[in-house]
């Protein structure tokens, strides 16, 4: 049983690697005082004197050489203290290994050979794995699920570089290199698809991003609890309506003759419009119905951020005679900025990943000019026309772009502010 080593928290060790790893290290060196520190930059094989901040009796390192409050010498190992097993290596080889410090007392029991370290590592983890074998049994089926339905399809994506032949199967089909990609890029529809996808996404982002924020800020001004809750209840409700029903409603409302929008236009003496048949209307219909459905849902997260703002700030502002608007601008907005950044990253990162479901249902031959996007095209080319390899190539192109975009946006956000997804 390992007690959470509290003194490590106090010594300011960062949480990378988690307390779990620290505990593992402790177990593997039961008699060598060992601790993880945040002082990362000491070169290998050099020593440094630091104050021990452990509490007496917390864990073995405190009893062996490290007296709380006294200075002791920490020495960085000549190289990695031990090599780790393959599954942990990704984690351990990263930045946190720099923190692999060994506290050596005067007698200096410190360096272990790599071999011994590895053995010890597996002693600890192997023992723990044997003890908790049931946990591994639990994850067996879910892991199989991920391999089968998420990773296996990724491997199947090689289809994009082959000419799929039903009798030969995926692996037996002939390699054709970039043929399908070339076909796609040279096809005039390529630019139409990219353009349509981007325009709809950007439109959705530009309109859809600020509206939940404004809604949250307004709701936050309301002191009447009942009214506030009721508005939240109502605006959240459309989130639970299915895509098919939303599209059905749109079609009923916008129907050329009987839809109430056209009936209303008729009463005003205006001519009816076949909204869904107009390519120019498609984007607005899609984007605004999306906002109708999801704005209330997105508001919740901002409201939570607003609830976390320190009330003292409002009191201070009140004393200073700030108006409501000034409070919003100087307290509320900075308060939700981190949340907003994360959501913006997610939105910008998924700008090419426009969902298939709703657009496909809203499409008809008349509006195809603006409504055909990459994902609907993949579906039609692949499953309706059985052009498997080509559709896989288009899909793969899209997935790779999405991944790159997300990584890029995330890196950018990390540079500019401190908010990022990972």
């Amino acid at each position: 049983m390992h007690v959470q080593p509290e003194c490590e928290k106090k010594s300011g060790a960062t949480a990378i690697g988690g307390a779990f790893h620290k505990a593992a290290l402790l177990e593997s060196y039961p008699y060598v005082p060992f601790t993880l520190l945040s002082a990362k930059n000491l070169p290998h094989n050099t020593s440094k004197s630091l104050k021990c901040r452990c509490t007496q009796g917390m864990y073995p390192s405190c009893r062996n050489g490290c007296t709380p409050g006294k200075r002791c010498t920490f020495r960085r190992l000549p190289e990695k203290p031990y090599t780790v097993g393959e599954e942990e290596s990704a984690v351990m080889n990263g930045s946190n290994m720099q923190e692999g410090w060994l506290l050596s007392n005067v007698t200096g029991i410190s360096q272990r050979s790599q071999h011994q370290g590895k053995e010890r590592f597996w002693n600890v983890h192997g023992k723990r794995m044997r003890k908790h074998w049931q946990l591994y049994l639990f994850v067996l089926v879910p892991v199989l699920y991920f391999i089968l339905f998420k990773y296996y399809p990724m491997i199947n994506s090689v289809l994009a570089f082959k000419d799929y032949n039903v009798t030969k199967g995926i692996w037996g089909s002939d390699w054709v290199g970039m043929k399908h990609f070339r076909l796609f890029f040279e096809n005039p529809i390529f630019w139409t698809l990219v353009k349509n996808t981007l325009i709809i996404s950007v439109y959705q982002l530009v309109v859809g991003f600020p509206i939940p924020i404004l809604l949250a800020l307004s709701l936050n001004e309301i002191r009447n609890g009942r009214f506030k809750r009721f508005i939240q209840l109502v605006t959240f409700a459309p989130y639970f309506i299915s895509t098919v029903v939303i599209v059905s409603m749109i079609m009923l409302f916008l129907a050329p003759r009987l839809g109430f929008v056209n009936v209303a236009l008729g009463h005003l003496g205006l001519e009816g419009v076949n909204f869904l048949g107009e390519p120019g209307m498609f984007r607005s219909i899609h984007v605004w119905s999306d906002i109708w459905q999801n704005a209330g849902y997105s508001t919740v997260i901002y409201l939570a951020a607003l609830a976390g703002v320190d009330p003292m700030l409002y009191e201070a502002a009140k004393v200073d005679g700030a108006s409501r608007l000034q409070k919003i601008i100087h307290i509320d907005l900075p308060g939700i900025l981190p949340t907003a950044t994360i959501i913006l990253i997610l939105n910008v990162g998924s700008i090419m990943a426009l969902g298939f479901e709703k657009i496909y249902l809203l499409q008809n031959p008349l509006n195809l000019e603006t409504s055909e996007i990459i994902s609907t095209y993949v579906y039609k080319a692949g499953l309706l026309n059985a052009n498997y390899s080509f559709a896989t190539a288009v899909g793969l192109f899209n997935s790779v772009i999405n991944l790159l975009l997300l990584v890029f946006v995330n890196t950018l956000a990390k540079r500019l502010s401190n908010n990022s997804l990972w």
Partner: protein
Amino acid sequence: MAKAAKIKEPLSDRLFLGVVYTVLILIMVVVMYPLIYIISSSFSSPAAVASGKVWLWPVEFSLKGYAGLLHNPQILTGYGNSIFYTVAGTLISVTLTILLAYPLSRKSFSGGRTLMMFITFTMLFNGGLIPTYMVVKELGFIDTRWALLIPNAIWVWQVIIARTFFQSSIPDELAEASEIDGASDARFVWSIVLPLSKPVIAVLMLMYAVGQWNAYFDALIYLKSDNLYPLQLVLRSIIILNNNAAGPMDAMKLVERQQLAELLKYSLIVVSTLPVLIIYPFVQRHFVQGMLIGSVKG
């Protein structure tokens, strides 16, 4: 008399608040009106709906739309199927999610971080539509009920929510204590973790259930037989593809049939959305909590 304790807000602030209230009420109307319109139409007479007389309340109250639904075998089968998919799918999904999320929440689970990365990576990158379709085909799931239950059984987001809950509400000390008392991990999960995790299980069930009930895409690509179609696909065929739902009632006049078909669309929307919207006010709190748990540690 005591002085009024409250300091009056300045005029500009009261004006500002007035604007906020007005905007919010407007938003509320915009959100609610389409819903009310659909419900009112579904309770009106076929003729009133077809001639566009309904604008807020039911006109010439009638239940013909709902009666018509009962005469359509396609709709009834779809409804039954959807109930089956929702119940079975939710059961499978919740079980798998908990089996995965619990070990991931334990410190004593060696390799948990690597596994977590393995799982979250699928949120960032996926094999795409066609390769996934091929896998489902290889497994022989095409045109079977399994196709709707298995390929999308685990949502990574839900795993994160459940894991965060277990981490914060089931302390490792508790697991260690029961370990000392001789309980195996399975026993601990069954007798301690599950009873303590009712709130998060409720959240998982609701989210998966709503997701299953509302899904149509998997059914669209994997199913071919009408008798397996979930309600959403039936809806699509009747409303979006405009296949007449009034049935082969030859005795009816053409006009009447068309009017009834139009009315059926409204009642169909109400009937398919009602189960979700009725439970919604009771569970909204849980949804919000679930969302926030997930977002804290995304």
